[in-house]
């Protein structure tokens, strides 16, 4: 079977200057703009009031006693456990002790939660609007050309992605169109942004998407009844069977230093 002759296309070098470079510049600039827009739009996180902090820290305190009880002697542990269990069950650490039986408020009506959601909305908007705009801009102006040839061979499957807008059946998939250059920019400009704006910039979308995926689920997820969490923690504390690292430590230490 005869080797296919290498395809050569004669391109106007002007394509390079008037498509590739403008798209790149526009992408970089939107990234920078997006960064500053999100800096402007961020609202300073609202300060938690003292009761909320107390509730959260008391729960954390219980958790740390549960995990590190082994540093204490039995008596010290039991005093603390009894004290905490009593406080947890009676609701002494609750932000609002008199609402303890009630179902949690609807997150939509809670102004704090609303603010968080608004922030997320804003971020999403800041990401989506420029993307749609640029994509439609590229589609309107630059569709239908192959602008460059990748320096490495790729399989035919990439054809639909790289040559979007170029309806030529037999063209080597290495030829790529402007829209695929746009996608490459989305994924590849991250380091340019890091260089320009510092490592915690809001310009790159990839980083933001990652962030959203691993949104921290704090100890106080909204919509959860704190009293129930306290009760669960009290139960966890109650079932601990105490041992101490200090039991028999003298012999353990002697064995270790002797060796």
């Amino acid at each position: 079977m005869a080797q296919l002759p290498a395809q050569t296309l004669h391109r106007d070098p002007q394509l390079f200057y008037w498509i590739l470079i403008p798209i790149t510049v526009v992408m970089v600039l939107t990234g920078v703009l997006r960064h500053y827009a999100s800096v402007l739009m961020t609202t300073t996180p609202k300060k938690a009031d003292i009761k909320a902090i107390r509730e959260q820290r008391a729960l954390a305190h219980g958790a740390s006693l549960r995990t590190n009880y082994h540093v204490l002697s039995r008596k010290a542990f039991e005093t603390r456990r009894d004290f905490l269990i009593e406080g947890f069950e009676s609701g002494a650490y609750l932000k609002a002790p008199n609402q303890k039986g009630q179902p949690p408020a609807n997150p939509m009506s809670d102004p704090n939660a609303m603010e968080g959601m608004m922030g997320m909305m804003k971020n999403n908007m800041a990401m989506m609007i420029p993307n749609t705009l640029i994509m439609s801009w590229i589609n309107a102006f630059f569709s239908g050309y192959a602008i460059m040839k990748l320096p490495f061979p790729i399989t035919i499957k990439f054809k639909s992605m790289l040559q979007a807008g170029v309806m030529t059946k037999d063209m080597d998939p290495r030829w790529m169109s402007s829209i695929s250059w746009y996608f490459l920019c989305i994924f590849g400009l991250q380091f340019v942004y890091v260089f320009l704006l510092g490592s915690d910039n809001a310009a790159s979308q990839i980083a933001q998407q990652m962030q959203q995926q691993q949104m921290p689920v704090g100890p106080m997820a909204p919509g959860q009844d704190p009293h129930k969490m306290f009760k669960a923690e009290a139960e966890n504390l109650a079932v601990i069977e105490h041992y101490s690292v200090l039991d028999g430590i003298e012999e353990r230490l002697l064995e270790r230093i002797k060796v």
Partner: protein
Amino acid sequence: MPSLLLRPHATLSHAEALQVAQQAPEFLRKNPASYSASPFFSLFSPPESSNTWTIYENLLLACLRTGDNTTAHQCLERLVVRFGASDERVTALQGLVKEAEATNDSELEKVLKEYEEILAKDNTNVPISKRRIALLRAMGKTSESIEALVQFLDFSSTDAEAWMELADLYLSQGLYAQAIYAQEEALIIAPNAWNLHARLGEVLLMAAESGNEGNPQNYLAQSLKRFCRSIELSDDYLRGYYGLKRVTDKLLDANSKEKKSAESDEFTLPETSTIEKLNQAATKKLGDIVRKYDAKDPLWQGYDAGEVAAARTYLSESSQKVVR
């Protein structure tokens, strides 16, 4: 070990603090007075990192400690320019500078008033709460300081630093049981901190020596275990071995005089032979540390000179006793 400039200031000795303070003018000269947020300028100025600001803070503390108030003000000014005067940490530093410059009690009272005003507006301001507690303590109002600290710990019960401070305050008042409780709370938060284990051992030993509350035998048993744990966590910890030697000496002394007191529900003492072995091990290790430190062995120079000297004195004292 990180460079002197980056180490937490409280761990520095006087000489080191002076050394740090002397580097301040040079550091101030080398770094720009303010950082621009624009990407264009950041290409031409030295990079800004979080370390820079840690260094500024350390320089500020070192300058105050050595009495170089003008340089301290320069450092503070840059921190204010960067973070704004309303930042919690910066306000605390500003207060600290005022405290350092106060010459009499009435000026300190004024600073205290300012803290209270800030706290009245925002009662969750942790750095200012801590400054207020520290200032109360410095002014000799220990009981008020304890009260404020207990209130602080009520809403922030996972702050090991605060628990340690509380333990120290109680200890200064001779309230051993309370000090031990606070110390244990700090241990719950940082279970593998060998220095906290050793510190608790020291407090327990002091409690046993004062002997006016609780069962001294009990305290001694736990103290012994705490020191053992401390050494288990950190092999060459001088304070751990020093404490171990002290407590075993004491136990052996007591053992020869009177037989073990009644059993209790707490920890029990190990066999006398084990205590003897531990004592020997501690003596040997302390001797090693002192010898290697004195011989200027480069790997053994990390110890505090005062601590080594104390160990040396104690060793020679106890060996004299044996000879006698």
